[in-house]
């Protein structure tokens, strides 16, 4: 029942551990690897498995709950909610943002106008090969 996980956490990364967990669960829900109705493993389980502070895991879970990715079922734990078509698209867009920021940065360095970037990107997006 509890899907543990394939979480990969690297404590000595510049990204706080709770954010690593939030992002991985979001991505797994958006990508359909964590399906609606599946329970996340308990805070204790994850903390023990990853040897990190349980408070870190609680923090990640409560963020996911607040944003509606999961819901707390009393006595049972955190259950994955239906991401819905909108939520799904939003989450996937979120995953693309870091790459787009890189593109924007490089485009500015190259002195390319927004139109030029978009016209360069368009054929790539429409490429069906």
């Amino acid at each position, binding site marked *: 029942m509890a899907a543990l996980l394939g979480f990969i956490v690297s404590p000595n990364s510049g*990204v706080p551990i709770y954010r690593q967990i939030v992002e991985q669960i979001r991505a797994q829900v958006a990508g359909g690897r964590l399906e609606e109705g599946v329970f996340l493993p308990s805070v204790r389980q994850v903390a023990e498995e990853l*040897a990190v502070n349980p408070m*870190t895991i609680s923090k990640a879970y409560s963020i996911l709950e607040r944003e509606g990715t999961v819901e707390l079922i009393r006595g049972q734990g955190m259950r994955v909610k239906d991401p819905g078509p909108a939520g799904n698209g939003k989450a996937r867009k979120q995953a693309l943002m870091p790459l787009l920021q890189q593109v924007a940065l490089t485009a500015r360095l190259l002195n390319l106008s927004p139109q030029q970037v978009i016209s360069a990107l368009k054929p790539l997006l429409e490429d069906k090969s």
Partner: protein
Amino acid sequence: MSDVPLDLVAATKRYRDKIVLDELNLTVPAGSVVGLLGKNGSGKTTLIKAALGLVKLDLGSARVFDQPAWHMDADAKSRLGYVPQVVNLYAWMRVRQTIEYIAAFYPRWNWSLIDRLLTEWELNPRERVGTLSVGQLQKLGILVALGHEPDLLVLDEPAASLDPIARRDFLKALLEIAADGNRTVLFSTHITSDLERVADRVAILRNGKITYHGELDELKENVKRLHVTAKNPLTGSFNVPGAVRLRVEGNEALVSVKDASGEVIDRIRADYEASVTVEDLNLEEIFLEMHYD
């Protein structure tokens, strides 16, 4: 239990003409796990000893559970567990004897926890303390500080002499203790990766003062290294508020800032016609950036 487990106010300690603690302030909130980080010789041990009343401050105050550390009563002491950097136990005693000897000082003692940890940590109860390795002795030191289930556990470089496996075991035990949320842990270390796993707060000791104390996550979220590439040369003119470390070469700059908010970054972009990339820093990198002058 709303009382503050550990509180240092304007704590000052000198050894001859060397000032080790310089009007230092540190409040350890209840239920937190605080990692005290500082390079060798920065005064971590002195800070811990002063906080527990094992060293007398020249000026300022140290309080444990709202009692003066230097005059703690038995009740406050029974709520405190301390593992010194060098564990000092009677060499002629056996491991089990040592534990029994120490247990006798306390009204309650969690034997089931201790027995479990003895097995998990592969300590032989019949072995004499004198023949234990440094790492084993350290483990025993930790064990006897845990038996009375203290509300405040203070450890001075607990992992320093443990091998990687023992360290992982120890971290797990520490997490287990922290898990109930009522207990407070303060441990000093220079191993940043241990701290990143276990601690929710970090205090950085430098030049006798706490230069940062707050949530570890917040520290990582706020302190960033910015790579700046500007249209024009930056030499001489480039400056950023909250810069911890700044290097400029031609029209490029590398600057670590305390608070890499969107505003700060946008200001750099606008003021210098520059592109900015943001680099995340781990605790070790942050620590190094903060110690660069």
